[in-house]
């Protein structure tokens, strides 16, 4: 039995994602060099979609369609993204949608739009400088986040409200995520990291995260963004995408 036959026997379980890590790695490293196995894997993946058709059919409530389409409308218009889930349990920061929509949106909405428009300029660094100037004029503090070697094209700007409790992170040029990943913002003080929330960006690499923390954002020394499993991690585990210090 040659290697291809051995791998071929593992493909059904690989498509179902039920192999042990070492076996899965063997398959993953074999696939790029073997078109036969790639085709076979595609057959198994298609088989899984057929298996999904075998379940008894149910329908969601008729309102769901409108709800989903409504969720896409404002997001595309102002490039604001939905925060996928609450920050992880241990984190001290929290996302409170009602708070922002009822109290903070008017001022923040205008500000974020300014920031987004400026970040959208073809000259990103000039956009960031202009956004910082504009935010400073309004009494907001800003922190520039620069891409690491992992994602040198990524940029971000964190705008902090005058009382230091609220913030808005706008990012651009973010690397693509797998389906089971999110970005996570970290607030860093004395070497300790606290989650500032999880988010993802659009295919264009744009994203926005609203932040509301128990402790003032200005009490943190630095900010960083990593790639984490969907929903976020209690502490950073993935590659650091960008970071910046509070001056």
């Amino acid at each position, binding site marked *: 039995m040659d290697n291809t036959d051995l791998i071929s026997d593992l493909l059904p379980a690989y498509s179902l994602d039920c192999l042990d890590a070492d076996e899965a790695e063997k398959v993953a490293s074999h696939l790029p060099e073997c078109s036969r196995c790639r085709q076979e894997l595609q*057959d198994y*993946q298609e088989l*899984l979609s057929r298996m999904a058709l075998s379940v008894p*059919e149910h329908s969601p409530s008729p309102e769901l369609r409108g709800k989903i389409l409504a969720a*896409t409308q404002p997001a595309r218009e102002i490039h604001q993204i939905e925060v996928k889930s609450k920050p992880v349990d241990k984190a001290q920061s929290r996302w409170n949608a009602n708070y922002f929509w009822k109290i903070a949106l008017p001022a923040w909405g205008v500000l974020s739009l300014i920031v987004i428009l400026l970040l959208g300029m073809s000259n990103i660094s000039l956009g960031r400088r202009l956004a910082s100037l504009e935010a400073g004029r309004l009494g907001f503090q800003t922190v520039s986040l620069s891409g690491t070697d992992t994602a040198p094209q990524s940029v971000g700007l964190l705008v902090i409200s005058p009382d230091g409790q609220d913030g808005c992170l706008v990012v651009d040029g973010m690397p693509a995520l797998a389906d089971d990943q999110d970005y996570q913002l970290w607030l860093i003080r004395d070497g300790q990291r606290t989650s500032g929330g999880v988010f993802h960006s659009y295919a264009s690499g744009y994203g926005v995260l609203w932040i509301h923390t128990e402790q003032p954002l200005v009490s943190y020394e630095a900010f960083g963004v990593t790639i984490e499993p969907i929903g976020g991690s209690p502490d950073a585990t993935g590659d650091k995408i960008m970071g910046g210090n509070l001056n």
Partner: protein
Amino acid sequence: MAKLKPLQPAVNFSELSDPDLLNWIKNADQSALGELYDRYHRLVYSLAYQTIGESAVAEEITQDVFLRIWEKAATYHAEQGKVLTWIVTITRNRAIDLYRRRRIRPENNPLVWEELTPLERSDGTNIEAEVDRSMMRTSIRTALASLPAEQRQALSLAFFRGYSHSEIAENLQEPIGTVKTRIRLAMQKLRQYLLDEAGLEND
């Protein structure tokens, strides 16, 4: 005053293929997303419901899946598989992730392949697509029903629960080698069944 001509829609989305719809979605076209939703929302919801067993959570997953499609349409590549396959992958990942994270008790949602129930009538309006899907559904259920019960049982734990070989072995109180063989044989047989079926269609 001259009468204004009503605006004609430039594209009839219901006539587009799935990959073409995704191209429109990639360019932020909501009508295209609406059409894709009309085609696949029952499949996504039903699979989520089967995995989780709670309608509110299944709706949450359905919403999440279509918003993920909206955001990730650009990452779909036709050469890597069909749109249906891509959507099912996203749905299974999301549903299994929630199943594990929320520690849902297995007794709340019995595995569907343990007893293959009669199919419900669909309320779909696209008759041709419904007929196609209905035929595919019938053939996969026939193929699944032809498997030995113990193979079907191991396969359903992997498919709906996302269990690994060792978790399935523990759950069924069987040696891990036996579980591996059951899953491999079941999947190989189902694949062969579908290949034979495709061969017959092409003849």
